């Protein structure tokens, strides 16, 4: 996937101006997800769960080498094959080799963000292998030829009418088809795909190092079929997805579902241990687990960024984010969007390639409050901003402006003079400070109150502007704002 994150400001503006329906659709869906999360969080001692989950994930990340080797050994004992992919190209090479080894011409896919990260669909298409998404949301955006705009709800930026239109074109359903009729159309297509696919590709929510368990959470049942009907199952899993113990699943399966959709647990949870054994009627003949690094080791080694790797991909931070709700995920130009995308993208892809993203936040803090593994997202955003400044990546005029700011704000005399200037120029400030043109493009002009507030002890009576008695400078009278 070619990241377009550098264009966030333009993409966000275009989304808001050209497709205003996206904002409404995303906001409504995100608010609904978030309301479910809040209710589900309220049903348990969620802060204790979150603190515990944070500690477990941090422990895994700080002992990742040990747990990865343990997971590999257990998986191999179960008869699975384990591959290591340093980057997306390596992951695609593994896939190429498996496609050719098993003579695969059709792949059915379970919903997987890492597969989007690796660009597997486009790659398979370029190798003349048909790949069909089997998650309904993913299936819809595959028909529309779009990337997902949300970790959990890839098509939440689309309205029912959008889906009716594309299904009418592709499946010939009625223009006014009900959601049930649309589902039935997708189902009949997908059933045939499930039965004829040579390979199922999924991601993985967790890999338990102790038991070599691959855990997958879903609500539609498509992942269960994708991992059991085709004769080959390939799971692409980020190296950070490990849990130490089988018993850890008890909390993580529930916490993930509560954070993501407000469910006590996902409708389907698949706990997979290698290929079908002789006494098992279902299941694949071959199972391959591809552990994907693709920049994660670099993030892990970064003391200001590594905590982002605790992420469970629940989407709670997207749902609660007022910035994300304006545009949905596409404007971020990367598979991971919203607050977690803004801290993962610079780590995985490089800061200069994704520079605007750490600034695509008002630092409101709602994400950190919602995160089930307590990733301090605002702190991580600030760390990326600091690094952008340190590396000289921010605009020259901005750097000069902040130097001037600190000079003025440490010299009270200059500061008061600046106050007089603000008051004197009044509504015409935008002419002198270009940044205010940006302010006034979407807001009424600022309305300075005049001068600065008088310093010193108060002895009753109305406060006076600090300078009027000394200088009589224009505009230094403090007037009540209208």
């Amino acid at each position, binding site marked *: 996937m070619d990241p377009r994150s550098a264009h966030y*400001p333009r993409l*966000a*503006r275009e989304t808001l*101006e050209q497709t205003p329906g996206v*904002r409404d659709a995303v906001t409504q869906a995100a608010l609904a997800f978030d309301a479910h999360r809040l209710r589900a969080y309220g049903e348990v001692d969620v802060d204790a769960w979150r603190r515990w989950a944070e500690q477990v994930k941090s422990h895994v990340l700080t002992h990742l080498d040990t747990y990865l080797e343990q997971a590999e050994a257990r998986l191999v004992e179960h008869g699975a094959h384990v591959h290591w992919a340093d980057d997306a190209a390596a992951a695609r090479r593994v896939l190429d080799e498996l496609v050719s080894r098993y003579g695969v011409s059709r792949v059915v896919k379970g919903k997987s963000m890492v597969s989007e990260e690796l660009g597997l669909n486009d790659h398979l298409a370029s190798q003349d292998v048909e790949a069909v998404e089997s998650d309904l949301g993913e299936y819809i955006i595959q028909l529309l030829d779009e990337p997902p705009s949300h970790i959990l709800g890839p098509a939440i930026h689309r309205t029912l009418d959008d889906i009716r239109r594309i299904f009418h074109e592709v499946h010939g359903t009625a223009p006014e088809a009900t959601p049930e009729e649309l589902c039935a159309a997708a189902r009949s297509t997908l059933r045939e795909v499930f039965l004829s696919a040579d390979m199922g590709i999924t991601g993985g929510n967790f890999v338990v190092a102790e038991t070599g368990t691959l855990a997958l959470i879903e609500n539609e049942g498509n992942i269960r079929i994708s991992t059991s009907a085709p004769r080959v199952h390939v799971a692409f899993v980020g190296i950070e997805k490990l849990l130490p113990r089988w018993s850890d699943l008890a909390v993580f399966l529930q916490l993930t579902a509560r954070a993501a959709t407000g469910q006590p647990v996902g409708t389907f949870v698949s706990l997979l241990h290698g290929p079908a054994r002789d006494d098992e009627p279902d299941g694949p003949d071959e199972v391959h687990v591809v552990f994907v690094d693709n920049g994660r080791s670099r993030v892990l080694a970064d003391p200001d960024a590594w905590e982002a790797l605790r992420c469970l991909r629940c989407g709670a931070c997207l749902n609660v984010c*007022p*910035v994300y*709700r*304006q545009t949905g995920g596409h404007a971020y130009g990367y598979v991971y969007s919203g607050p977690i995308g803004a801290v993962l993208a610079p780590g995985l892809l490089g800061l200069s390639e994704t520079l605007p993203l750490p*600034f*695509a*936040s*008002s*630092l*409101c*803090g*709602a994400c950190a*409050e919602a995160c089930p593994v307590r990733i301090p997202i605002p702190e991580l955003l*600030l760390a990326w*901003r*600091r690094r952008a*400044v340190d590396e000289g990546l921010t605009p020259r005029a*901005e*750097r000069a402006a*902040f130097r001037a*700011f*600190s000079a*003025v*704000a*440490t010299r*009270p005399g200059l*500061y008061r003079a600046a*106050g007089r200037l*603000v008051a004197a120029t009044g509504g015409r400030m935008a002419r002198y400070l270009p*940044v*205010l043109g*940006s*302010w006034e*493009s*979407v*807001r*009424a002009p*600022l309305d*300075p*109150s005049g*001068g*600065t*507030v*008088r*310093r*010193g*002890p*108060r002895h*009753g009576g*109305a*406060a006076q502007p600090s300078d009027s008695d000394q200088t009589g400078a224009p505009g230094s009278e*403090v*007037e*009540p*704002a209208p």
Partner: protein
Amino acid sequence: MRVSLFVTCLGDHFFADAVHDAIHVLEGLGVQVDVPAGQTCCGQPAYNAGYMTEAVRVARHTVRVLSDAGPVVTPSGSCAAMIRTVFPRLLASDSAAGAATDLAARTWELSEYIVRHLGRERVGQGLRGRRIAYHHGCHALRELGLLHEPLTLLEGAGATVVDWPADRECCGFGGTFSVKLPPVSAGMADRKLDTLPDADLLTSADPGCLLQLDGRARHRRMGLTVRHLASVLREGMDGSA
């Protein structure tokens, strides 16, 4: 009882009337108010934009000018949060570290000071019959943990605080965010304004949020009255002027 008022840069330049109202309210509650000389800005604009050198410099200045100031009260949740939660970390390895921690422990947002420190829930009865929408600034809400304090004072003065589904959502100000990404920032303000129920006025303890919401509402010619909490509390104390 004696406090020092930290005016803040937005207070100086855009909310002087609200600053005077804050002084008036505090004095009405029997508190002597000093406005320490030399004070400027807390440095948050630089901090949030990633300019650490500049932020440290300004923070150090603020710590110095407020060093012997007793309790510090400020009509800004965001600046109170900057001083309380960021200064100690920002200046941790600085010679001002001890003074920063000391300042953090005696800095209060206005409504927080009145309710939590003075233990007063009533400034007067001047808001009887008023329907008021309250915007919870993110830093007051999440960093200072203020939720009931401003509402208690408004309701204590007789106002009805209207039920507003988006009252705890960010207004889209975010310092430089507001000028770096104007369409996104404006969309966030619109979400607030579009969900606003019928009310006589909109208020908040945060000058930044008020600039944003008032600027957007005036741009849209909504005819919405937007006032700082301190000014509304002054009305609560004195009755409408």
